[in-house]
């Protein structure tokens, strides 16, 4: 990974492909995040029966599954660097911005993979209404971007602390709570067969959230990474 030969994007992509290759070798994070999602989904479907759940309940359950699955795997990429002792070498070969963007893209890939498996299963197991699937996908995509944009920096912070596992959820939750409130509200409206225009203020909020969180993370990441 030569440092000067190319632009920010290609350097970020280099970090991204490195992480992707490592993940494909072990499949640690993907297995954790996917199995967590499947497990919580099973518990939900099993204990609540299959049909007749209200949109309110469905959207709350869906985002609880998403939140805890995300919490189980999104810190892996940074924790792996610390555990194998490669963070110092990465520090020498790439600058913080491209590391952050690379890791952000990797977490995004991870969560999108997980979501594209869990969401169809969710609809099958809970018999949620599928008429409004396109607006649902819009909200879901923004939600995934929101989750990843807010937790990638927190994951970097957590990887430097001594207790890692439990702390990630605890420290991320206050930051994600605003996002989850808006997501649950918007998903409820969509599952209740409202059109996309009825959630336009929620969509504006979600876009603003993603932009703000990504920008501030980019500004702050170097202070975390240099520690």
């Amino acid at each position: 990974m030569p440092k000067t030969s190319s632009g920010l994007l290609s350097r970020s992509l280099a970090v991204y492909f490195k992480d992707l290759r490592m993940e494909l070798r072990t499949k640690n994070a993907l297995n954790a995040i996917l199995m967590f999602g499947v497990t919580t989904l099973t518990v939900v479907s099993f204990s609540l029966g299959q049909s007749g759940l209200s949109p309110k309940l469905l959207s709350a359950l869906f985002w609880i599954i998403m939140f805890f699955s995300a919490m189980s795997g999104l810190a892996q990429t940074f924790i792996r660097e610390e555990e194998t002792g490669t963070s110092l070498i990465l520090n020498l070969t790439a600058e913080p911005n491209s590391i952050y963007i690379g890791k952000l893209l990797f977490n995004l890939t991870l969560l999108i993979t997980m979501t594209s498996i869990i969401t169809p299963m969710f609809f099958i197991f809970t018999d949620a209404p599928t008429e409004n699937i396109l607006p649902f996908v819009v909200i879901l995509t923004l939600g995934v971007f929101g989750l990843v944009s807010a937790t990638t920096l927190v994951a970097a912070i957590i990887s430097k602390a001594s207790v890692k596992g439990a702390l990630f959820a605890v420290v991320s939750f206050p930051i994600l709570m605003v996002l989850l409130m808006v997501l649950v509200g918007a998903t409820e409206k969509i599952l209740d067969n409202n059109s996309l225009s009825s959630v336009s203020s929620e969509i504006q909020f979600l876009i603003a959230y993603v932009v703000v969180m990504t920008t501030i993370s980019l500004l702050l990441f170097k202070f975390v990474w240099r520690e």
Partner: protein
Amino acid sequence: MWWKLVLFVFMSIMIYFSFALPAPQQQIGESSRIFYYHIPQAWICVIAFAMSMFYSIRYLQKKDLKYDDMAMIAAKLGFIFCVLATVTGAMFAKVTWGMYWNWDPRQTSIFILLLIYGAYFALRGAIDIEEKRAALSAVYSIFAFVTVPFLIFIVPRMVPTLHPNDSIINSDLKFNIEGAISLVFFSSLALFTVLYIWLFNIGVRVQLLLRKQMELEDL
């Protein structure tokens, strides 16, 4: 020394008048007296949070542990005032809405503020090396503060609230209170602020002495 005595005297007078004057809001009744205490506490809570973020930024610029101490002390005091504001708010909610807690947007936002403070201290507790702890908790403090505008300005507008928002400042940004009530309210606000600054200074001095003691033990 003298200004502490002045603070004591004025605080006593303020507390006396907060009960002696007629209730500030006739429709709500006697329970509306809580606003002499609840609003200054919420105010200090936000001020302390902002100060904590300010000193966190200073730390990242200067890498001087003094600023980390200050950020931590501001967060500690902010947490105490945040608990007080939550409790007084819940008491008021019980009297006027019939429930201590109903996830009103205002209650949600102060609850998230409490969670942020809690997470901040949990994070600090999990990092052993001082410089590392200072930098990481500073970053978290700034990052968490960015979500506060979403909480205070955007979410309460998307969800209906029962919180009496216009009891002091109405929608035209004019003050709704006047005369003796406004005098007591604003002196309460000022006195609580002075009290907070006093507590903050004590905290900083204690931390300084602790550092001196550690240095002496190292020798």
